[in-house]
């Protein structure tokens, strides 16, 4: 894990100190809300439905036990004993008083954390693959490059007042677990014809009001050109991105309106025109210095087979189910990556209590090489767990109520906070997600259905990523009543696709039964051999599913 140097520490602490002064002036009435608002947003402080909300950055989703415990302490001392992990690998608190915010930023700084780049029209917190450094299919660990981008973009004066917020994601696996095709810029690490690792630049993807799967602007950019090519893209966007209409201000609209070829031409022109003194060419020693922080841990030389793990699986169907659904293959023999699904039936997706956060810290520290990740699916992942330790890990998770065995299945629902917390939302998300979860309450039925991504957003801003759910749910306001549009066929992986709205919205109580009918239709149509929901839908089309959706209950 990256460790702050003196510059990082000074920068974060000075920023917290600066915000303390701004808060004091606000509370004395020396700053009006209209003047204070952009300042608080630059520090991750939103004014939500019930109270102020603080969004804390977790760069590329990586935590350790010390940080997780500090986040739990913040939940206990300054909030109401819980926190919410988000689809951008961050964490949010819903109840912190403004007067306490500077103290919270100070205690976050004590563990090398902050709330910078979690709001405002800047380059936001960089996200990545939650299995980085552990999975078998990546060609290189993407985290050093995330960290390089973080350092380059933090307080970058040229890009601190962009037309709109700007989100960058990096992945290096064959399977895209970072949803790079639906980001403003997605970087997919790939080899060129000579076998050299670089970056595919995917630009202009995004969700929200106008969803796009981003097109590839350049198939391969050399590592040494990464920051210069990023700057070329940012400059074209900064120059031409619309500032007159915030709904048309994201780079996806610029790429769409200019057309891909013209956009590419302008970026290449900008890239070629950079003088040698303005190109950001990273010294190799700096790349090496940052990469060293992400050196693979010293894995023990283990057999791929673990008698303890095999015994655990054979002990009960409960154990076997968790192992099947929540463990992922690891690059080192005798290890696995463990998903802690924050999706227990009836709980808000992504929420964890302070006790659960401390439990995850303890488990990660003791059994996970002190490496804890936040996944954009709002789950927590321990990337490095010995198979021999799985029985102990599971027992500890179960004791903390963190043993949901549903990773990647129907009840592992992504959902935004919705109208229960959010000042922008039109409808509740959590309650609808909970009712859909109940459809999959029978473990045998959920396993029979298999891989299924259900994503719920409470408004068109799409924080619940409904456009890329196999089944997406979008809350809408219809004359003061909550309705929910249903979308089919989205996906966020390397075959990214935007889901299609099926038709009129359903009432709150109609959603879960309708989803059940859709699932039953899938089960009746799928091919033998466990054809996945999304594959069946691709093969047969959406019509039978739509018919089931609107069939009279």
């Amino acid at each position: 894990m990256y460790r702050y140097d003196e510059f990082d520490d000074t920068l974060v602490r000075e920023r917290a100190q600066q915000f303390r002064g701004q808060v004091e002036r606000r509370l004395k009435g020396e700053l009006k809300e209209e003047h204070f608002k952009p300042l608080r947003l630059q520090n991750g402080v939103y004014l939500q439905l019930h109270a102020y909300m603080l969004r804390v950055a977790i760069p590329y989703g990586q935590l350790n036990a010390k940080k997780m415990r500090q986040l739990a302490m913040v939940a206990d001392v300054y909030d109401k004993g819980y926190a919410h992990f988000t689809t951008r690998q961050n964490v949010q608190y819903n109840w912190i008083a403004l007067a306490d915010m500077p103290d919270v930023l100070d205690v976050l700084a004590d563990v090398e954390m902050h709330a910078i780049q979690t709001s405002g029209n800047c380059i936001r917190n960089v996200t990545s693959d939650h299995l980085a450094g552990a999975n078998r299919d990546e060609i290189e660990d993407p985290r050093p490059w995330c960290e390089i981008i973080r350092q380059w973009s933090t307080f970058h004066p040229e890009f601190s007042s962009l037309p709109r917020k700007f989100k960058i994601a990096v992945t290096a696996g064959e399977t895209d677990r970072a949803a790079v095709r639906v980001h403003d810029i997605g970087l997919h690490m790939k080899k060129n014809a000579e076998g050299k690792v670089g970056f595919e630049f995917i630009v202009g993807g995004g969700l929200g009001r106008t969803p796009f799967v981003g097109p590839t602007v350049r198939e391969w950019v050399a590592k040494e050109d990464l920051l210069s090519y990023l700057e070329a893209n940012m400059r074209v966007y900064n120059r031409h991105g619309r500032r007159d209409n915030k709904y048309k201000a994201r780079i996806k609209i610029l790429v769409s309106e200019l057309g891909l070829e013209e956009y590419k031409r302008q970026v290449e022109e900008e890239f070629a025109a950079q003088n040698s003194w303005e190109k950001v060419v990273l010294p190799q020693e700096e790349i090496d210095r940052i990469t060293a922080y992400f050196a693979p841990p010293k894995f023990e030389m283990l057999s791929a087979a673990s008698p303890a793990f095999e015994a655990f699986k054979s002990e009960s169907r409960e154990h076997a189910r968790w192992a099947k659904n929540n463990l992922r293959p690891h690059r080192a023999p005798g290890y696995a990556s463990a998903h802690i699904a924050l999706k227990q039936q009836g709980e808000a997706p992504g929420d964890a209590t302070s006790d659960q956060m401390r439990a995850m810290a303890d488990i990660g520290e003791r059994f996970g090489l002190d490496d804890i990740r936040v996944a954009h699916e709002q789950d927590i992942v321990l990337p490095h767990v010995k198979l021999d330790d799985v029985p102990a890990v599971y027992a500890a998770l179960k004791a903390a109520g963190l043993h949901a065995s549903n990773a990647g299945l129907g009840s592992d629902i992504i959902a935004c906070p919705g109208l229960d917390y959010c000042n922008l939302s039109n409808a509740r998300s959590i309650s609808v997600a909970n009712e859909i979860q109940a459809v999959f309450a029978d473990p045998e039925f959920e396993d029979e259905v298999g891989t299924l991504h259900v994503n719920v957003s409470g408004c068109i801003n799409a924080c619940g990523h409904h456009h890329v759910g196999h089944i997406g749910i979008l809350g809408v306001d219809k004359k003061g009543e909550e309705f929910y549009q249903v979308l089919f066929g989205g996906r966020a992986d390397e075959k990214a696709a935007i889901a299609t709205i099926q038709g009129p919205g359903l009432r709150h109580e109609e959603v879960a039964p309708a989803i059940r009918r859709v699932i039953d239709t899938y089960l009746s149509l799928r091919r033998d051999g466990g054809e996945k929901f999304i594959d069946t839908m691709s093969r047969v089309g959406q019509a039978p599913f739509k018919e089931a959706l609107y069939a009279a209950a």
Partner: protein
Amino acid sequence: MSSERPKLGPDIPKVVTAWLSATGRVVYLTQDRNWSEDLADAEVLTGIGANDILAWAAKDQTRVSDPYFMQVTPDGKVAGRETIRETIRARGPTNHPMFGKQAGNN
């Protein structure tokens, strides 16, 4: 989206609501020009004079942020097309009732 509040005509009963600047807590304007966390304490307004009271509230920036009109029934209950939003805002999140004001957790 819901952040764009509906316009309320002069005949529609309404209260002024906002967030306390220091804590972010939801509050309602009372007849004596104080702010209460209890909707029952709010002054129900009608007529064009209500706009002057909202303008006064907008200047009370040290104590509150972003005041706006919220529709109510003549006896001060949440009403209108924002009923769900304002009920949740007044009472607390429906998924965590123990944190809401309905649980006496003020």
